[in-house]
């Protein structure tokens, strides 16, 4: 019995030590990788900025670009199959969206996954802040968003996340448009 416990303890200890060591080496690398990915995503949605600072307003983290008025935020919400994570770049003072990108999603490949296509994300570029409406026909005013055919729910989900995000951004930056 003693030998059994001893063997398991030794193996457990060696394993724990080895893992602690590997964790120490790789943790900074992994963190660096994540920071790099976030930086790329933020700068991608801000047209002019080449650096940014993190600012917390109303309990939300905003990334303010070094060019006046450019602000990005990362938001997420429920989609068709799971969480959708977006990065939104906008000017809250003029109340205008620059660009959105989809960071992460688990929508149906080939249908809902079309929310990542430029064809869909570019719809939001240049839109004024407000509450957007998903329609299943060509749009007739700037507050409307044409749904991807076969993926109305995913389109609706992205649109709702953005409507909510720009509203929070507007409140945080004191009214705007």
């Amino acid at each position, binding site marked *: 019995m003693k030998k059994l416990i001893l063997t398991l303890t030794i193996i457990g200890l060696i394993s724990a030590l*080895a893992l602690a060591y590997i964790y120490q080496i*790789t943790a900074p690398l992994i963190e660096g990788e994540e920071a790099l990915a976030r930086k790329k995503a933020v700068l991608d949605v801000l047209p002019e900025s080449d650096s940014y600072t993190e600012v917390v307003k109303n309990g939300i983290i905003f990334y303010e670009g070094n060019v006046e008025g450019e602000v990005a935020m990362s938001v997420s919400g429920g989609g068709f199959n799971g969480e959708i994570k977006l990065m939104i770049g906008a000017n809250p003072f003029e109340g205008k969206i620059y660009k959105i990108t989809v960071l992460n999603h688990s929508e*149906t490949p080939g249908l809902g996954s079309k929310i990542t296509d430029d064809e869909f994300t570019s719809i939001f570029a240049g839109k004024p802040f407000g509450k957007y409406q998903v329609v299943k026909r060509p749009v007739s005013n700037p507050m409307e968003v044409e749904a991807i055919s076969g993926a109305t729910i995913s389109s609706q989900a992205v649109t709702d996340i953005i409507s909510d995000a720009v509203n929070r951004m507007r409140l945080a930056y004191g009214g705007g448009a």
Partner: protein
Amino acid sequence: MGFLRDFTNGLWNENPTFRIVIGMCPTLAITNQAINGLVMGLATTFVLLASEIVVSLIKKLVPNEVRIPSYVVIIATFVTFVDYFLKAFLPDVAAALSLFIPLIVVNCIILGRAEAFASKNPVKNSIADALGMGLGFTWALVLLSVIREFLGSGSVFGFRLLGNWYPRMTIMLLPAGAFISLGLLMGVMNLISRKKSGKEVN
């Protein structure tokens, strides 16, 4: 001679995917892109190799009663190692494989080979067995993922082979396509092995 036989065993005769039918979860889940299949196969091969070496080295030191828990701890250690390594150096692929890297821990291939082979054989043969089994698993994953990516996205390893005219078969990328294509592929493998053994008899 024994070395070579142990190596080739896993490639075909006892191929984990097509013959023994184990390790099905990752086989189905991550084979929607060829690169995922390749990385998953190699990650599993690494864990299998490292675990078989260690198990074979310490087989005389570990009392029989705590054999399985000891092996499980050893396997889980190497899996964690691979997980951190992938997250640090191949973050995109690591994100695509997500849950299925840690799940290598419970991939029956690893515990199965550690218990059935490495705990009874010398290190040299265990290395051969691990490489054979690991690469046998890898080629099965790559084959399935190449088929699925080609039919589903018209590309292989991310290279566009078919133009925009190709109506992409989205279903191949979905769970349903995974099940159906693996089922048919297994049927084809059965057919090949039957033809092969039929010839040998004649």
